[in-house]
């Protein structure tokens, strides 16, 4: 990998330059919560100053740029007995600034499913290929546990990745596009001092992790504790509201629905993000439900993330951002559930 540095003024010029011809998205603040803290969201930037480089965490993950909550898979013009099907994968180039290591790692996990497996998903692929990602390091928050699931550092899946080293950003370059961008906007060679600054920043980040989740034998526990009362305990609180999956950077389950317009001349097949926590996720005709209870559905979300995905790809699907834990009003977080699971096993 190539590394460069870029001064903060040049970084500003870079973003402004990119904004002229492309859609650039980055963390902006949308609301204040009841404690007066800012709530962030990835939104289109109209002005460099809207970009919050010191943001903490967006409430919802940037996954929706790649897997939108709703997307049209194909459209149809209907005639009396015939139809004409149209499929387009048109995505205009865009740039996302400020994605965290965990969010980029999340995309790499999605790549496994959406691009590298059987039946690659062209909708996802078109979005992925047309998105330039400029990542950004940060000091972990109180509840970040990406380190426990090996998602705190990232070496691939971005075009540029920035680490704040004071007056400059230390830049890892992950693609040709990334290289050209840095080059165009005054990237500099990495000096000895830059390297030191980078190292101490990294050390500092490393030292700041507070939350640890012990996932050592979690894949096995998923099977061993399949009937455990842990699930019921948390399941009783779960409102099957799907918030956790919606904000999650990796949850990708979906549903497909088709509908016609009122004139019965046009139809569309649409995909919408679903959650395995929702009551009818596994319901089939005749109202038979393979997962009739909240705790069973909750269990399967964890089962997919910490057991199924590990079996398939040697890594957990969870990247440790704790967005689900924040979004869940019932206080169900991976940390809490897995700790409980570990403890129950010890007893």
């Amino acid at each position, binding site marked *: 990998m190539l590394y460069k540095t870029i001064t903060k003024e040049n970084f500003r010029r870079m973003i402004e330059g990119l904004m002229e011809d492309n859609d650039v998205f980055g963390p902006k603040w949308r609301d204040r919560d009841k404690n007066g803290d800012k709530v962030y969201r990835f939104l289109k930037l109209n002005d460099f100053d809207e970009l919050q480089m010191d943001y903490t965490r967006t409430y919802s993950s940037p996954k929706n740029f790649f897997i939108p909550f709703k997307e049209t898979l194909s459209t149809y013009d209907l005639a009396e007995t015939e139809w004409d099907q149209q499929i387009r994968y048109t995505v205009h180039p865009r740039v996302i600034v400020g994605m965290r290591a965990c969010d980029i790692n999340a995309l790499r996990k999605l790549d496994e499913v959406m691009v590298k497996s059987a039946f690659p998903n062209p909708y996802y692929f078109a979005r992925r290929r*047309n998105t330039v990602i400029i990542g950004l390091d940060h000091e972990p928050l109180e509840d970040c546990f990406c380190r426990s699931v090996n998602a705190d550092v990232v070496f691939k899946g971005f075009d540029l990745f920035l680490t704040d080293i004071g007056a400059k950003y230390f830049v890892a370059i992950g693609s040709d596009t990334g290289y050209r961008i840095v080059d165009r*906007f005054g990237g500099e060679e990495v000096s000895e001092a830059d390297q030191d600054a980078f190292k101490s920043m990294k050390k500092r980040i490393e030292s700041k992790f507070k939350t640890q989740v012990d996932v050592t034998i979690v894949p096995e526990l998923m099977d061993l504790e399949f009937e455990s009362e842990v699930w019921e305990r948390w399941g009783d609180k779960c409102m099957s509201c799907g918030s956790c999956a919606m904000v999650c950077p990796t949850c990708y389950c979906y549903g497909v629905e088709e509908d016609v317009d009122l004139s019965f001349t046009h139809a569309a097949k649409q995909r919408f993000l679903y959650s395995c926590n929702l009551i009818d996720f596994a319901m089939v005709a005749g109202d038979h439900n393979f997962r009739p209870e909240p705790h069973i559905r909750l269990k399967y979300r964890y089962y997919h993330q910490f057991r199924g995905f590990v079996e398939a790809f040697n890594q957990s699907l969870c990247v440790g951002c704790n967005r689900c834990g924040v979004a869940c009003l019932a206080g169900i977080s991976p940390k809490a559930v897995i700790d409980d699971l570990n403890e129950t096993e010890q007893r």
Partner: protein
Amino acid sequence: MTLKIPRYDINREPFMTQTPDFNRKSQLLQTERTYKARINAAIQLTPEEKLFQIQILDPKERAQFSCLPGQFVMVELPGCGEIAISISGSCSNHEFIEICIRKVGKVTGMIHRLEAGAMVGIRGPFGTHFPMREMNGSNVLLIAGGLGIVPLRSSIYWVNEHRPDYKDVTILYGARTPKLLLFDYQYEEWRKVFNLTMHTIVEEPDENWTGPVGLITQLFDQVPIDPDDTFAIVCGPPVMFKFVCDHLSALGLPMQRMFVSLERRMHCGMGKCCRCNVGSTFTCLDGPVFDYWSVMNLQEAI
């Protein structure tokens, strides 16, 4: 100073302009493109079940379509929905695809209203198949309950078309009432022409029924099973195949030689929507045909 990022247009890739081939999984392709197919005949089997014979319109696409017993297709009625349906006819028949649909809800209900001449879209085939070639040189036991005969039927055709490859082939088929026995007009042909042994059983007989009455496991008394040289395919509701497979296990049939077809909610058929996912297993990719050992190792399989 600006930098315009060039657009990567996936639509221009050569594979986007070709007709899709669902067996060529290595490439990106128009996964949502359906083959347009015309219904040639729609035969009402029972009040709830209808058999459709459909033909892919485009000759090139038709030639490209090839399947194996146990696989399924996604059948679409644009604007109404898309559903997973097993292939029920002969897989060597490259002209027609036969599917049998039970009316249970929105899409199946609408498809039932289609008459000969109407069209549906199909994608596929998807999923694993019954390992018919592995069974060469052995006895084959085909066991179906209720609608389970539908996917099984394509194996019956396969066996007939490759009859010398197999030793004794026996069909055991049970339904709730005699009227619900599907394809009864074909039994004679299966027995006499296909040279298969066939036993049927019902739970609730009517006045004309002369055959045995009870659960399908009762038929085992009538067939000799050589556990060392037999393969079994079991299709039917989960409760049924659990009973049947346990029975066969008890007789000494290895779990790896029993095959079942699982049913799950499905929205894509391509291992993406996760509706049929159990842990790492996708019923649409790794199934619907599983050997019984795999099923036993799936949490919540049945």
